[in-house]
């Protein structure tokens, strides 16, 4: 009996400790060890930060050589003052990691194809894709290239050392909460990881092409339809470089061969993402001749996936020779979009197609055919570690074109054709030097020098200086191509299909101080058709027309104008389509409820305010219309096919209302555009009324749109913010749809003592348990800005709420 009395509680205690200290699997859900997670000593309670900052005022860090002061302003933005550059980037690494370590590491794990280590076999296909695309391979090459420059080597290594100093200070208790929930530990940071992060950005911004889709369309529908559905240029383009600008250089060294397109149908299921029509950005600069201050103003707002913790981290970096402020990417040193006392700069995505596919003719296991010869294949064996499973070893072939992404080991659906990827992102580059140089730029010459370091992803760099210059250049390594080269999959066995070299940087689209008094870019075509080189890409039509209309008025602009334009909700798509829809609508037999919607739309000003109801109704009709028009592109679910963009669709319906493709095939008769618009109106109106009935709320635009700022791990919904009350949409300057939007809004006035304003949908802290995790979201949604605190030296003002000193 006594033995039992001892045994039972003791055994129960042992079992309980064991269970609570083990990661459990309940169906699909993995539960971290509950004892550690719920312990107030080491668990998530430790991440429940008090509202007031209570950090140490003096900190010793071995890696420093001098004294560094870090001041936090009332929004908790750190202002770093160092005595030398090594210390500056060391502290940038340390401070950034302190707020954002988990996200930095998570993103680089994703980029490297290491998600399976965290979540298990569900991510294997994703990881294999990442590795086969070659991001880690490219980051590897980039590090060697970066190390050739002593400056960038020092910057990268100091930053990594700073991140590692922070990692070294972590205990079980102070680990970011995501590590506790997913149950793993951070590893050391390296320059390789910084390179990976930059490759991750390249992937997001240049990692798209429609080569498979276009090849399929060509093989299925013929050239005429391809040109109609996916034109390289539509009419009505308002390019970045003003219309009529002369390009005074000859094009040399491009031979257009007679070429053939590989037959066959291709599938690209793993690259099928959502249409990236929501990716983009705005930037512009207005000359001092047209501002109320007499000095240039610059605005930049990159539209990216909206995430928490935010992709951006605000910082001021000061050391002898540099004093700059702006948005940084956690994981990378330097300011990416920002300003200093003399200049300001911003970026939008170029969208130029820098990714092409080559069909590879394998000869046995180890060779492939090229120009009648057999060339050797390089192999790379990648070991993918899988949580809760055995390692997976993938064999990846490399040709001189690039990695063979698809082959028999990684086939497309029903098609094992080996396809190699040529992509500028895979080439060695040192984009960091661009930002390093811009951070220190004094004027226009420095800006041009900085850009020459920049290869990929192609960006439109807008620039303005205190001395009065404004400029914009589309910068990147852009391949020279013969007309239509790379639109379709190419024959990898012939040198005819090789890229023809790269466009010299001084011939990239560029304009300085144009007569119209402003420069702007919103992801549209960089030039008109007189630009001597052929190019194609992913271009926007509506935002460019809007911003150029707003900036093209002969008057003096103010900072408030810049803010208003960034948050402008006017839709050119609605302006183009809605009158056409309404004039074709048969209103004689409309039901009363539809009549009301008709009246609402008729009075609408095409402005997508958060509480607009016509915006919701119009969107529902537009979505329906796109499905009705492009039904021909729906049934091919085994093939990759692309839907034409909204701009092309509207032009097509107006120009060719009786075209065979306008007809909706599943119905008896043959519809023309007018009939289709009537159906779209009815179905859209039904949808609108259903939504209202289902949710019991007015279908205000923001409710229907449901803008969500999602945590990087989407299943961690509690760390996300849903239903943000904000207007705008893709193809609108305030380009906020459900998942993407202005990830950082910045306006800089380059007057004496530069002034700047900014906001982003997040907060400085990456800790969901901090009150600084998402404090800016509401201001961002309302279109409000914070004036940025730009300090010349460490000083105690009412804007500074906390000061830390770091010494060796």
């Amino acid at each position, binding site marked *: 009996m*006594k*033995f039992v*009395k*001892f045994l039972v*509680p*003791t055994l*129960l*205690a042992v079992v*309980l*400790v064991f269970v*609570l*200290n083990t990661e459990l699997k309940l169906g699909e859900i993995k539960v971290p060890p*509950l*004892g*550690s997670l*719920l*312990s*107030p*000593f*080491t*668990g*998530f*309670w*430790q*991440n*429940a*930060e*008090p*509202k007031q900052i209570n950090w140490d005022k003096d900190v010793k860090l071995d890696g420093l050589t001098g004294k560094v002061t870090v001041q936090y302003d009332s929004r908790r933005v750190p202002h770093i003052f160092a005595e030398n550059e090594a210390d500056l980037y060391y502290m940038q690494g340390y401070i950034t990691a302190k707020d954002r370590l988990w996200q930095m590491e998570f993103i680089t794990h994703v980029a490297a194809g290491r998600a399976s280590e965290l979540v298990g076999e569900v991510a294997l296909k994703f990881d294999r894709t990442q590795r086969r695309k070659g991001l880690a391979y490219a980051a590897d090459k980039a590090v060697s290239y970066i190390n050739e420059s002593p400056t960038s080597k020092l910057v990268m290594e100091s930053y990594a050392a700073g991140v590692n100093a922070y990692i070294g200070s972590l205990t*079980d208790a102070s680990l970011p*909460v995501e590590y506790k*929930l997913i149950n793993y530990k951070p590893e050391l940071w390296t320059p390789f990881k910084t390179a990976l992060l930059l490759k991750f950005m390249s992937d997001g911004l240049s990692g798209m092409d429609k080569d498979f889709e276009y090849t399929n369309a060509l093989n299925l529908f013929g050239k005429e339809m391809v040109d109609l559905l996916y034109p390289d240029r539509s009419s009505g383009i308002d390019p970045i470089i003003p219309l009529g600008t002369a390009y005074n250089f000859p094009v040399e060294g491009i031979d257009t061969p007679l070429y053939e397109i590989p037959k066959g149908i291709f599938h690209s299921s793993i690259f099928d993402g959502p249409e990236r029509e929501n990716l983009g950005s705005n930037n512009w600069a207005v000359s001092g001749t047209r501002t109320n201050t007499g000095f240039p103003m610059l605005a930049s707002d990159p539209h990216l996936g909206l995430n928490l913790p935010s992709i951006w981290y605000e910082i001021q970096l000061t050391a002898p020779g540099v004093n700059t402020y702006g948005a940084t990417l956690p994981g990378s040193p330097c300011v990416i979009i920002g300003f200093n006392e003399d200049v300001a700069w911003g970026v939008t995505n170029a969208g130029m197609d820098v990714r092409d596919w080559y069909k590879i003719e394998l000869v046995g296991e180890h060779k492939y055919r090229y120009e009648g010869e057999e060339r050797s294949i390089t192999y790379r064996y990648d070991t993918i570690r899988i949580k809760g499973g055995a390692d997976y070893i993938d064999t990846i072939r490399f040709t001189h074109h690039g990695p063979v992404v698809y082959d028999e080991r990684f086939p497309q659906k029903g098609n094992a054709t080996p396809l190699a990827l040529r992509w500028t992102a895979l080439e060695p580059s040192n984009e960091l030097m661009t930002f390093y140089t811009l951070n220190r730029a004094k004027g226009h010459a420095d800006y041009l020098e900085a850009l020459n370091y920049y290869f990929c992803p192609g960006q439109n760099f807008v620039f303005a200086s205190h001395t009065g210059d404004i400029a914009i250049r589309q910068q990147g390594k852009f391949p020279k191509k013969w007309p239509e080269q790379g639109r379709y999959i190419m024959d990898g066995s012939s040198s005819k299909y090789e890229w023809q070299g790269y466009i010299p940087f001084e011939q990239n689209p560029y304009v300085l101080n144009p007569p119209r008094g402003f420069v702007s870019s919103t992801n549209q075509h960089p030039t008109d058709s007189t630009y001597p080189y052929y190019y194609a890409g992913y271009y926007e039509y509506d935002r460019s027309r809007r911003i150029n209309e707003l900036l093209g008025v002969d008057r003096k602009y103010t900072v408030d104008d810049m803010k208003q334009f960034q948050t402008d909700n006017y839709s050119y798509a609605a302006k183009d389509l809605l009158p056409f829809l309404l004039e074709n609508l048969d209103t004689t037999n409309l039901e009363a409820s539809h009549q009301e919607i008709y009246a609402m739309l008729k009075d609408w000003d095409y402005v997508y305010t958060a509480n607009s109801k016509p915006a919701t109704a119009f969107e529902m009709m537009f979505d329906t219309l796109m499905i009705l028009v492009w039904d021909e592109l729906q049934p091919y679910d085994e093939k990759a096919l692309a839907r034409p963009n909204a701009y092309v669709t509207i032009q097509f319906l107006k120009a060719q209302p009786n075209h065979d493709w306008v007809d909706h095939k599943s119905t008896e008769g043959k519809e023309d555009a007018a009939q289709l618009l009537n159906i779209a109106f009815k179905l859209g109106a039904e949808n609108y009324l259903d939504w209202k009935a289902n949710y019991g709320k007015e279908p205000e635009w923001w409710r229907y749109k449901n803008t969500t700022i999602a945590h990087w791990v989407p299943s961690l919904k*509690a*760390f996300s913010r849903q239903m943000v009350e904000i207007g705008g949409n893709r193809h609108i300057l305030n380009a906020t749809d459900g998942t993407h939007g202005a990830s950082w809004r910045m306006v800089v006035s380059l007057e004496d003592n530069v002034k700047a304003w900014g906001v982003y949908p997040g907060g400085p802290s990456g800790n*969901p*348990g*901090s*009150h600084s995790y998402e404090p800016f979201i509401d201001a961002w949604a309302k279109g409000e800005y914070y004036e940025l605190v730009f300090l010349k030296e460490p000083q105690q003002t009412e804007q500074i709420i906390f000061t830390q000193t770091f010494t060796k």
Partner: protein
Amino acid sequence: MRFLIITLAIALVSIVVQFFLPWWSLAFVAFIIGYLSNLTGWAAFGAGLLGAGGVWFAYAMWLNIGNESLLANKIGPMFFIPEPLLLVVVSAGIAGLVGALAAAGGRNLRGLLAK
């Protein structure tokens, strides 16, 4: 009185130990103090429950108040616990249960050896 002293002893020693060792070190603390105590089995159980659980309750509560329940409101629902206070209680319950069983086990080991 003795009960109170034992409870406090478990609480204080487990606090010190948990600043250096994993959470389950509290089981050893409760077991040893339970062994050294001359409480009844059930009293040792109670002392472990209140001593180890009380520490977790108080510490979690303190952190939660300083945080204005911000994080508890996000973590709780992941485990179907909508109330921050309930999450504090559940957390404390873990330490309490382990502490109680270990203390009772320790006490009863003494009973076993003392025959």
